[in-house]
């Protein structure tokens, strides 16, 4: 029936006689979304196992295929041949729907990411309004509201998560999903607020537009407010995709497995796929928003060469895609690294961290971002040579100072709150609070 629906829409779209790049779209769908991205995800899983093993002085999977390269494939085959059962008391349809929702959310967010630079076309500059050569971006589609689209699509995941826990009719699962939804909604706010400075500086919500601005003015992560936004965005992304140290939904030690406790076989596999795919997507988003996409550090070289010959464009896109994947790989490594280092957070601290530290910090950061805009970006809007050296450094100094103040202020305020204050540690341990004191947890008498 859905096929019918698609064909109806397609016919009607064709009747509109708009230029529709069918070939490119089908290539994206069947090469990208059906082949490359799931394969990539499978190798991210393999990479995580290898890297986590190295962090723990182990070797990691090396039995299935050379270097264990076929391990993920073997796991997939295993999952396919496992018995698939739904608990007798579960709500069958919603139980089946939940992992589908998670996967949809992860896949849809990959649609707007510009993996490469694409070509160059004349467009209106969002900041100045004049017509100038702009990158088209190598993405499946380029939406004018790309950033809110990403946030909207990724927020569907929390619904899937809740439904998974609820439909299982299992107390652990329900508890896990309630908790994790509370966590996801709490961390979505800092995530959103951290993207606002980027939009503010770029003057556009389109990801390609943001990429274009960044290639021109330098990576946003290299500015103090941009760096703060990047850190906040990464931290809340960890929570959004349920990775350690925010992996409370899957808290094995207390909730067994959390929301996917009652899932077996390939349905569990879908959750797994969705989790890693959303991690990949989040890294891609972060690379696009803060790390300049496929741009090579401190260079804007491919930009001037683009737009001439198709072969040149293809070659340069290949380079930019490689650089993009390198950055994404580094971010994914960061995910693994943090997971290997930090223990899981406690629920109350988790919520307090989002509401009492990250959100105030985000709001202040927005203010500082506006100051950066006024000092560095607005005076040179429309000028091709970008901000001057002195101007840039004045802006850098002022905002860096403000950022440091904001950071220490926010942390101070956070610690004033009695339940997170080290004063309680001081009174209970009787010793000077330090890192050492955190290690030696006082026993309750």
């Amino acid at each position, binding site marked *: 029936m*859905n096929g019918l629906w*698609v064909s109806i829409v397609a016919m009607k*779209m064709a009747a509109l006689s708009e230029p*529709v790049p069918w070939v490119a*779209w089908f290539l*994206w*769908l069947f090469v990208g*979304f*059906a082949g490359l991205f799931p394969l990539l995800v499978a190798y991210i899983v393999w990479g995580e196992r290898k890297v986590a093993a190295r962090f723990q002085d182990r070797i990691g999977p090396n039995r299935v295929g050379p270097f264990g390269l076929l391990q993920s494939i073997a796991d997939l085959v295993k999952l*396919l*041949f*496992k*018995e*698939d*059962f739904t*608990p*007798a*008391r579960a709500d069958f349809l919603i139980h*089946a729907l939940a*992992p*589908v929702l998670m*996967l*949809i959310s992860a*896949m849809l967010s990959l*649609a707007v990411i510009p993996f490469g630079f694409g070509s160059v076309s004349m467009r209106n500059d969002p900041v100045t309004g004049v017509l100038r050569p702009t990158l088209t971006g190598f993405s*499946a*589609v*380029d939406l*004018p509201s790309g*950033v*809110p689209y990403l*946030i909207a699509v990724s927020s569907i995941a929390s619904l899937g998560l809740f439904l998974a826990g609820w439909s299982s009719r*299992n*107390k*652990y699962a*329900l508890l896990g999903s*309630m908790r994790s*939804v*509370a966590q996801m*909604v*709490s961390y979505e706010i800092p995530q*959103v*607020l951290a993207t*606002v400075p980027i*939009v*503010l500086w770029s*003057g556009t*919500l389109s990801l390609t537009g943001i990429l274009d601005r960044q290639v021109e003015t330098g990576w946003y992560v290299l500015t103090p407010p941009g760096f703060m936004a990047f850190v906040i965005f990464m931290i809340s992304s960890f929570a959004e995709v349920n990775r350690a140290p925010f992996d409370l939904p899957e808290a094995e030690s207390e909730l067994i497995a959390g929301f996917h406790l009652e899932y077996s*076989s*390939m349905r569990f596999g*879908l959750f797994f796929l969705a989790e890693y795919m959303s991690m990949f997507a989040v890294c891609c988003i972060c690379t696009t928003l803060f790390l300049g996409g496929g741009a090579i550090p401190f260079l804007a070289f491919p930009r001037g060469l683009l737009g001439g010959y198709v072969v040149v464009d293809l070659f340069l896109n290949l380079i930019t895609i490689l650089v993009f994947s390198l950055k994404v790989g580094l971010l994914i490594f960061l995910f693994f690294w943090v997971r290997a280092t930090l223990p899981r957070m406690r*629920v*109350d601290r988790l*919520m*307090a961290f989002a509401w*009492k530290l990250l959100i*105030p910090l985000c709001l202040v950061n*927005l203010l500082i971002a506006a100051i950066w*805009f006024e000092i560095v970006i*607005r005076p040179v809007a429309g000028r091709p040579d970008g901000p001057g050296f002195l101007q840039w450094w004045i802006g850098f100094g002022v905002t860096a100072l403000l950022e440091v103040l904001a950071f220490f202020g926010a942390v101070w305020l956070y610690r004033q709150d009695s339940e997170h204050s080290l004063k309680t540690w001081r009174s209970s341990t009787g010793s000077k609070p330090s890192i050492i004191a955190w290690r030696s947890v006082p026993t309750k008498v």
Partner: protein
Amino acid sequence: MILSRYLFIGMLLLFAIGFAVAPLVLIRIIAPRRPTPHKGQTVECGLETQGETWIRFRLQYYIFALLFVVFDVETVFLYPWAASYVSLGWYAFVEMMVFLAMLTVGLVYAWAIGALKWQ
């Protein structure tokens, strides 16, 4: 234009549904299915599950969801503001700061009376 872009999003949506449902259909065919009463039971570490699972939860979840909705609506206004900031003057900045300050007052209030404390 917009529509044709979203046609791809729609195609991708259908594709994602298909991509997720296809393995579910596949395991229907190839995976063994031998349900027993024991397998169908709720996992509770070997104990029989006691009482009803779908019970009333704490009010606190609701408060956090409500806070979330308020801040989410805030983003609805923040994005257009940020996107058009370059064409606007200082008054837009002041406007948004007043707007944010009002919400911050709400947040501070919630903090002060302990609504942000997870119990």
